[in-house]
């Protein structure tokens, strides 16, 4: 890719238009998906409890915008003068010869985000509980997407790109870690509370306690 682009003049932007569009769409998708993940994690958290309806609308809109940006990112590559990828190269993992691992990572992330995102509209059929469990994998797809952008992205070495990625990715990762910690702590807390309730019930049923309380009442 680099060689063919380098063979042209650096100032001639026309031949690179598809490449530029694809890069811009990829960057937009990275930011939008990160913000979407953050909003989705905030929905389930306790930070913005009263704003659940607004967060849900924002999360949905951001997810759809991410998918649109990802589609533009992939489809514009079809017109790239150097790479000349087929639709199969862009849609099927491990088919493209160009940086196969990173490209495949991006393709898998796209399909996962598409399926998991659009499954929201079929959640009554899937079942809300099952859908919620499935939806957790969206975070994994997002991480794959970040790996794809850092591993294959043309601008991955640029300081502005790294700063922008850090600004949107670090808060989302923080929220994700907080959510995971919460999820691990909650069952433990449930067991703890359950044991306290059990102890209280045992105490209440203990004949000595009952006798003692009866004697006191008499």
């Amino acid at each position, binding site marked *: 890719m680099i060689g063919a682009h380098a063979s042209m003049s*650096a100032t001639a932007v026309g031949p690179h238009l598809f490449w530029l569009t694809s890069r811009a769409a990829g*960057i937009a998708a990275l930011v939008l998906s990160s913000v979407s993940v953050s909003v989705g994690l905030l929905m389930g958290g306790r930070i913005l409890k009263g704003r659940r309806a607004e967060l849900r609308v*924002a999360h949905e809109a951001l997810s759809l*915008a991410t998918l649109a940006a990802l589609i533009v990112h992939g489809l514009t590559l079809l017109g790239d003068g150097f790479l000349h990828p087929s639709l199969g190269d862009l849609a099927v993992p491990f088919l493209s010869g160009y940086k196969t691992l990173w490209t495949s990572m991006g393709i898998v992330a796209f399909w996962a985000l598409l399926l998991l995102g659009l499954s929201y509209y079929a959640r009554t059929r899937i079942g809300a509980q099952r859908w919620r469990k499935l939806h957790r994998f969206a975070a994994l797809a997002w991480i794959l997407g970040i790996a794809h952008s850092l591993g294959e992205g043309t601008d991955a*070495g640029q300081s502005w790109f790294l700063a922008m990625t850090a600004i949107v990715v670090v808060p989302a990762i923080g929220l994700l870690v907080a959510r995971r910690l919460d999820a691990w702590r909650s069952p433990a807390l449930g067991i703890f509370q359950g044991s306290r309730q059990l102890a209280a019930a045992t105490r209440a049923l203990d004949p000595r306690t009952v006798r003692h309380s009866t004697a006191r009442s008499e």
Partner: protein
Amino acid sequence: MESHDTSARPRASELTPEQRSARALARSRRAAMRRRARRIRRSVAGLTATLFSAAFLTVYVQLASGHDPALSAAAHRRAATATVGAGTASTTSTSGSESAGTSSTPSASESSSESGSSSSESSSGSGSSGESSQSASAVTTSQS
């Protein structure tokens, strides 16, 4: 189903003033929520367009000013290869003249053919600076 609906929702005339005001309040709240949702969707669409435009502008300016990471890396590689190629060519010509003066020609002719192939590779832009530098060192060795 319809009869059930009518039994669940009494007519407006049958409602007490409190119920009427409660309904109006619910309606206004629903409308406000719908308005908020529309505003959020528009904001997200605007954000998407802005983000895309900003990203496009950034990479465009980078490319137009000759600071594109892919292109500048390739240009550096080409420049390095060209320099090495030029060095190889001059060294080869020197070795050629020397070999003309002396009788030891095979190694010199082999090395010059090697350097020729490496320069043609570098002009194709495959970034074979390593190969060409190897051939350059081979030429120097044969010359010595």
